[in-house]
Structures are given as C-alpha cells and as structure tokens.
C-alpha cells in the first residue's frame, strides 16, 4: 500500500489548471469561467475535508463495506434479460441494432 500523506495539501493550492485537468478526466467539458468558479469552490471544500488529516486513524482499517455479507453468488444459469430493442430504446443514435457514436479521434 502506498505511504499515507501526513496531511492534505494546504488550502489555496488548487489552480484552475488542475481543475481543468480533473474536468477533462471526468469529461465535464467545463468552460473557463465555470472552471474558475469551481476552482474557488473546490479550494474551500477541500480545505474543509482536509480536517480528516487530524483524525487518528492509526489503529483502524479502511471500511470496505458495512453489511458484513461475504461471497454472494448465484447459480451460473442463463436467465432472460432485456431484448436488444429494449436496451436500445433510450439511445439517441442507433443503427442496425447497435449504439452509434462519433469516432474516437
């Protein structure tokens, strides 16, 4: 496991360029004014959640799930699902039983 950072980055350290990068990763397509506004808000929120660094978590494992269920499986049998028409019914563009999207590049 990677070494834990001692603390969150200091407040005021989030540049619009960094928000632009994250926006691109998340495919949000934000405009410059939107990025600036979000960068300012993100700074405040990240500073607030940064208080997590002062919680003493040295003696606990991270929660992976809260229910306590283990190894939930089912019989490996084929069951009816949605038909292709049903699965495609909400798609904005489709052709010959497929979803249609623009080329990657």
């Amino acid at each position: 496991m990677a070494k834990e950072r001692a603390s969150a980055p200091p407040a005021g350290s989030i540049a619009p360029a960094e928000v632009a990068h994250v926006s691109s990763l998340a495919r949000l397509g934000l405009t410059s004014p939107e990025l600036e506004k979000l960068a300012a808000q993100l700074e405040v929120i990240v500073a607030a959640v940064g208080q997590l660094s002062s919680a003493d978590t040295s003696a606990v494992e991270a929660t992976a799930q809260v229910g306590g269920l283990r190894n939930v499986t089912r019989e490996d049998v084929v069951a009816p699902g949605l038909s292709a028409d049903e699965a495609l019914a909400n798609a904005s563009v489709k052709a010959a039983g497929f979803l249609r999207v623009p080329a990657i590049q």
Partner: protein
Amino acid sequence: MSLLEEPIRELSRRLRDREFSAVELTQEALARAEELDPALGAFLRVTPELALAAAAAADRRLREDPSSAPILCGIPVAYKDVICTKGVETTAGSQILHGFVPPYSATVVDRLSALGVVPLGKLNCDEFAMGSSNENSSYQLTRNPWDPERVAGGSSGGSAVAVAARLACATLGSDTGGSIRLPASFSGVVGAKPTYGRVSRYGLIAFASSLDQIGPLAKTVEDAALVLTAIAGQDPHDSTSVMAPIDGFLGELRNGVKGLRLGIPREYLEVGLDPGVREVFEQSVKTLEGLGAVTQEVSLPTTEYALAAYYVIAPAEVSSNLARMDGVRFGPGFPGATTLKDAYEQARHNGFGAEVRRRVILGTYALSSGYYDAYYLRAQKVRTLVAQDFDRAFAEVDAIISPTAPTAAFKVGERTADPLAMYATDILTLPANLAGISGVSVPAGFANGLPVGLQILGPYLGEATCFRVGQSLEGEAAVWNRLPPLAVAAK
C-alpha cells in the same frame, strides 16, 4: 376531511367494507394533486391513467377476496424520481436523463405493484439525489407546505411534501446522507432510512452505492412500517441486500418504551442547534422518559470528522457511478459532436447541473493520483471509526435519539451560494449512512410554526426498535395529524 388524511390501516378497512372504492380514493388523490400541487411542486409527473387502471384492478381484488387482499391493496403511493418505473419517464431530477423511459421497474416498485398499490406518479428531487433542499432539481422547486418561502428539504423533498400535503398515502424516497429523514423532518412526516441492505437497490439510480438506501415516507409510524415491511428483504438482483426478519416492524410497534435505554449523543447537541429545535428535542426526551424510557448520555466522538469523510466518500462514488451518464445509451445525446470525447463532454456539460458537476469534480480529484491516500483512504478509515462509535454506544443503549437536523426548514435560496453550509444540514443524519445503521425521523413538534423531527437511530437491522420509539412519541406528541396550510383543498 379528505380520505387522504386517514392512516393506511383505516383506509384499508374502509376499502374492504366497500365504504368507497380504490378508484374513488385514487380520484380524490388525483384531484388533490391537480388542485394543490401547482403551488407545491411535489410531482414531476402524475400518471392518472396508470393510477386509475391499478385502482380498478385493486377494486376487483378487494371485491373478489377481501380477506386475503394485502393491506396496501388500493392505497395510492408515489415514487421519488430516482426510482425506475417501467414505461414511465424517470429523470432523477437531471436534464441528462430527460426523456429516459426505463425498460424495467425497480424491485421496490414491482413488490408494491404486486400488492395492488396505486402508483400516482413521480416525485421531484435534487438532481441525482444530491442536495438537502430540493433546490438542485433541474426541473422545478418543491416548496414547503408549512411555508412556501421555505424549502421542502432534500433530496426526497417531493416525497415528503406529497405525504405532508396528503397528495399520496405514502411515498418512497432514497437516503444517502439524510435524504429521507431530513425532508421528513422539514415537512412534518415520518421518514425511515433502513439499514444498508435491508431494501433492494435494484432500479434505484445510483448516487453513492455504499450509502444509498430506499425507504418509506408516510403520515404515521405504522404506515411507514407497513410500507417497509412490503419492500424489505433479499433480492437476487441486489447482492448487497440481506435476508433478515421483518416481522418486528409491525409486531413490536406497540410494545412501548418502558425500560428501553435511549442514548443522547453529547456531540449531536453541540452542532449549533436552533433554540426551537432544542426545545422540541428536550420535550421529546421528557415525553419518552415519562413513558418509562431510561435516557443516558452517550458519546460519538468521531462526529466532528463524519461530515468531511462523507464529502469525500460520497463524491468519490458519484464520480464513478455517474460515468455511465454519457449520453450514449440514454439522454438527449450529443448532436453534432465529431469525436467521442466531444460527445461525452457535450452530453455531460449540457446534462449536469452545478451541484452534480461540483461533486463529480470533487470525487475525481479525491481519487486522482497523489490524493487518494490523503482523502479517500483516510475517509474510509474515519468511516470505520464512525461505525465503531455506534458499536460502542449500542452496547449500552437500545436506540439513540437526537434532533433530525440542527434547524427547521430554511428559506429558499438561503444556502445555495454556500455549498459547505448546505452540506452541514446533514451533520446529524449522515453518520448513520456511513455506519450502515437504521434511522427514522418522526414529527416531534413545532418551532416557530415549522415542523421539527426527532431522529431515532437503531443498530444494524434495528428498525423495529426505531419504529417502537417513534410510535410511542407519535402517540403523545399529537402532531402527526396537523395539516399544513398548503394542504387545505377548496373542494
């Protein structure tokens, strides 16, 4: 007096006795929605044809075999718009799902339909259930029926208001950090957030999968218990759903609170409670003590970090869950986009509102390389501490009581400019989601004319105890049947 003001058990008896039909009851519900909802904005869409057809079917069932018809047969309900309904548009309050007509229904909808309930339509909510006021819906504002200048609470605001204004007998909502309990408190109705896994999430449009639960909102504790009994239980379509007894919800409802140990978390009283809320809470404590409950202080020391942990974990899950909202399989699409990335960005930019963008960004940031350990991993460790706090408390007490929220309903627009102020609305509700335990909000009184809820938290699978405490308070507080001003119909 409207039929919609009566508890479900009474309505069910009268339906069976043929005092009126399910069609007549449904017509009354539809007429109330038509008259009252324009000022409230609870419904995103009403489905009169489906409702009347279901009511007619319920009438046949009640006529043919009244003694074996389920208690919910013929009872009008409605669903939060994050719950998929086959053939009925489901938007989650978002433009990116505008026009989406699910090809299947959520398990909870199928279960209620099989019992003969009457589906009235779909209820407004914050976009993808992200919000505490319903102001994040991209379609409309839901107003508080006690004061239309105030918010309904969120994110299941439409679900709470439809019950408070007696437009539906019960509704379903979803609760990720308080989204059932908070609007229930603000609107003066009962709202139950079941234990994680108690109710199938199949067909619930995901917000944060490790925190989300579907639950009922209703006028009375018994009505909420009746609906939860109907929707709870394991589902092969949701591998996180659990098999566990449900007979206690109704079976233990009237056992009273004599000798029951109730914990009052010291930290929950230190979050800047509104004086009126504190007063109602103190009165509730006295009432429950008068009925024989034994109260004691408990400590949940991780409370100060719970909000921060939640606002890392929930957005992290949002950033992952909402990746599927790309305009390809559903939504208005991406006309004119020339590359796939453009298509995604166009669909998501046009489709997501400010709060959803904020959380996707926050979650993507918290999970991105270099920040994962400082934020997500640490938040999941704090989550363990929150759960351990509750484990320790429930070793000493049977249930924990507190106000549901620090304040009563706030003014429309009051917190929209300050995300952190909005997030803090959930400070008393979200720890239960982090720990996966059960919680119910019950109307406890009024502060300056606005409803105030008592939150009862129970241990894992401890809903029966929550309902039992809620039932005891409901009997004494005598507020459940008070009608809000905007629920009064001319006809």
